[in-house]
């Protein structure tokens, strides 16, 4: 179980769903979310592979953030870029992540997305997957679950969040141009967030 492998799994999952994410963005945006995210991780993965094998989680996440910032091109670039940088800031010096640290990283990422994009829950963005995920993670901790179990709960909550984005209209990002017409479509960013959480969970569960 290494941070480098974890990032590789996450990146490959995003790249695999490139067309799916692009199709989602086609419906309520400019049709590039999958292209953007795939380009981002295509640029990030070789950089991660080249990192030292010291399992410096913060250094690896910082590399992801910087890589996404300079390659994604769409709103998801500054948003996920900031999220990964902030998550890195919440695990400085760590080579293993416990549940409390993981939760702090997730919340730092969410805070970063909100600082950058000024959105709240319910505006049909990636936050509608990530905030419920964080809440579920917190509940897991309270119930005494370990980090991987908490992440499993978080993934389920994120999936429900994605479903919820179908029911609401967008008030942030390009989909907000469509207003009410965005109802019925799931948010691409909420979907890519869930894809990343899911890939991480699968990797950690199988490695455990």
């Amino acid at each position, binding site marked *: 179980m290494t941070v480098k492998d974890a990032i590789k799994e996450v990146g490959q999952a995003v790249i695999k769903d490139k067309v799916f994410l692009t199709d989602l963005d086609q419906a309520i945006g400019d049709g590039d979310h999958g292209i953007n995210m795939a380009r981002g991780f295509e640029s990030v993965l070789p950089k991660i592979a080249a990192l030292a094998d010291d399992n410096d989680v913060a250094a690896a996440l910082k590399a992801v953030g910087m890589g996404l910032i*300079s*390659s994604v091109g769409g709103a998801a670039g500054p948003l996920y870029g900031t999220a990964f940088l902030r998550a890195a800031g919440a695990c400085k010096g760590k080579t293993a992540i416990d549940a409390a640290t993981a939760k702090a990283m997730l919340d730092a990422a969410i805070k970063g997305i909100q600082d950058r994009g000024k959105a709240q829950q319910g505006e049909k963005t990636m936050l509608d997957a990530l905030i419920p995920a964080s809440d579920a993670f917190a509940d897991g901790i309270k119930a005494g679950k370990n980090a991987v179990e908490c992440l499993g709960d978080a993934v389920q909550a994120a999936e429900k969040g994605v479903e919820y984005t179908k029911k609401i209209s967008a008030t942030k990002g390009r989909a907000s141009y469509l207003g009410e017409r965005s109802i019925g479509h799931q948010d691409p960013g909420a979907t890519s967030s869930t894809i990343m959480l899911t890939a991480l969970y699968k990797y950690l569960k199988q490695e455990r």
Partner: protein
Amino acid sequence: MVGIVIVSHSSKIAEGVKEVALQMAKNHPVYTAGGTADGGIGTDPVRIQEAIEAANTGDGVVVLADLGSAVMSVGLAKEMIDPALAKSVKLANAPLVEGAIAATVEASMGSPLAKVLQTAHDARNMDKVE
């Protein structure tokens, strides 16, 4: 002189705004960051950062951007530059084309940062009535 940076999802828009602005103020430091690094449609915080650094001559920089995600990229670019410079880099809450032209003319007259920013902002009120 306050420098001007034009950020657009399209390199064509950014270059076009620059050429129209420069018509009114030859040789003014107007820099662009249009499109993605690979020539596609989007924005690139790294190229925005470079444009800001190029436009800076010591009197500050006013940045004009087109859409919401360009605004986020500008925010990130500001976090990546020297904090001392970042303090004198202001994103105009103004329409891209109209604000950039007004701001460039204002800046070319030697006006200070706050005045250039205000002029860009006032371009919101520009009326277009036949």
